[in-house]
């Protein structure tokens, strides 16, 4: 079984400047990781239009709709950090974690993400991370 967060899916200096670009960026990483089919990216945009996936503490978690579950090959997440926070419907998103959760996996993924992003010192570590390994050391616990 593939790991949930791979080093290739971690980008420390995201290039997107808008929310839609950031969703594309996260989506591309999910596609590149072989976790989802192309159609999932469109579903991520669609999901974003209903309710914002900005979670607070600088974290946004774009993901697809329920209907797009069939486009998921395996559970995976991506991590993109932005030096200039993205304007996420008026909120500053510094970390964008794209999520593809097969079956009920997303619940476990979300819970472990929540445990990391509720701690200010963990967020500070993510902000200071200088390599993909640093990020993996913090988010590597995200398992299914």
């Amino acid at each position: 079984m593939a790991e949930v967060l791979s080093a290739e899916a971690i980008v420390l200096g995201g290039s997107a400047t808008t929310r839609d670009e950031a969703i594309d960026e996260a989506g591309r990483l999910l596609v590149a990781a072989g976790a989802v089919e192309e159609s999932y990216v469109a579903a991520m945009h669609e999901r974003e239009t209903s309710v914002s996936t900005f979670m607070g503490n600088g974290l946004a978690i774009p993901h697809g709709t329920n209907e797009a579950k069939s486009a998921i090959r395996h559970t995976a997440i991506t991590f993109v950090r932005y030096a200039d926070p993205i304007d996420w419907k008026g909120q500053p998103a510094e970390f964008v974690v794209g999520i593809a959760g097969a079956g009920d996996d997303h619940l476990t993924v979300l819970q472990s993400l929540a445990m990391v992003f509720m701690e200010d010192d963990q967020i500070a570590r993510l902000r200071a991370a200088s390599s993909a390994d640093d990020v993996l050391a913090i988010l590597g616990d995200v398992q299914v």
Partner: protein
Amino acid sequence: MASTTAAPRTGARVSVQKFGTFLSNMVMPNIGAFIAWGLITALFIENGWLNLGGEDHAWLSPGSWVAHIGGWGDYAGGGIVGPMITYLLPLLIAYTGGRMVYDNEPRGGVVGAIATMGVIAGTDVPMFMGAMIMGPVGGWSMKKIDAIWDGKIRPGFEMLVNNFSAGIWGGLLATFGFFAMSPVLDQIVKGGQKIIEFLSDHNILPFTSFIIEPAKVLFLNNAINHGILTPLGSADVQDHGKSIVFLLEANPAAGAGLLLAFAVFGKGMSKSSAPGAFIIHFFGGIHEIYFPYVLMKPKLIVAMIAGGFTQILINVIFDVGLRAPAAPGSVFAVYIQTNSSVKDYVGVTLSIVCGAAASFVVAAMMLRADKSEEAEDDLAGATAKMEALKGKSSSVASALVGGTAVATQQIRSIVFACDAGMGSSAMGASVLRKKIQDAGHPEVTVVNKSIANLVDDYDLVVTHQDLTDRAREKTPSAIHVSVDNFMGSPRYDEIVDMIDESRG
């Protein structure tokens, strides 16, 4: 104001309130059907509006279409008035009750309705009480039976097993109800009717206000009205075409007089908020709004009893009756359901005027005699007390004092709700759960759900601020907290504080 924790609630009252909420949850969703039935009755029966009140004014022939639908004249025993109260209303209540105990599964409602059919057919009185018993019993027992083979059915056979188990069990319950429950329920309903008849024959019906008025402000209003008075009144209607019982609790007269007295002779916040409360109470029919004014000065219950006594007395004198429950207890609902004769209208009108006048005069005397300066936050304190009494916070009452959520009751269950119940609420719930457990409250449950699946049995509901209004509609009795940050909202710490406080 959260510090004004009221005296510990007694277990018995909480159970009665819970039971009352349960009963009213069965009845309230179906009030529309009660109103339809009331209107059809008012229009089409022999003494109805279309026949100009019948008797001397009657102008329609016994063969008219009005007689046809009303079930009188040539069509006696037919029509739709009788079948509606005999079948439709009890079956709706049974369905709602069965569905409610089976976690909102329609299946529970279906079995409850089948089961209730047995007691409907087995008795000759409207089986509201039977529906309130057999409906939930049907739903609950089906749930228990389903649990036996849950997950053990061979794939592809689920539909077959589910349909036949519901059909067989429902059929058994209906048979059991028909033979075993019917005689018992028949006796209970007839016993209740005898009590009402005894009370009205001996002209002591007004004295029921000595029980009803104090019980109301202790939030037993729904238990009394929907649990006891609605079934008794409906049976009474079957015999007499109308019932005074519907007016015992639902007449807004006494509360209206009290609030007017506050508007004129009150002080501070209670004076300034009374006119708004009057409108909500009198026209909106939400009686809960006046309870804090009584709880603030408990001796005012004397004014409420005076108002209640007077309005019932006048209704007795004029032999007034409603055709269907006035729910909510608004002046509009009362008039719409009033039996259509001049005497009834005059009686109801006088009962409202005089009942309000009585409670107004008594309350005014007490308020004026009370020289003590009222502290600004007395009403806020009373509202907190009331929420403690009720066991849940009342959004109507908090709107009254413009305050934030006050939790003086124990918070045991928290639900995090979002649109789909998948993502953000799951995250928020994990964060909050951890915080609450770290604070040493492992007994508090935190779950996440989609708003569509919310049911009103959580103590506290957390939602994104954009969704709070929708959640409030679904769970009016819970405390609502809005957040805009799921990870580190300061509101989480407030919730933990609230739990700490509610544990004293």
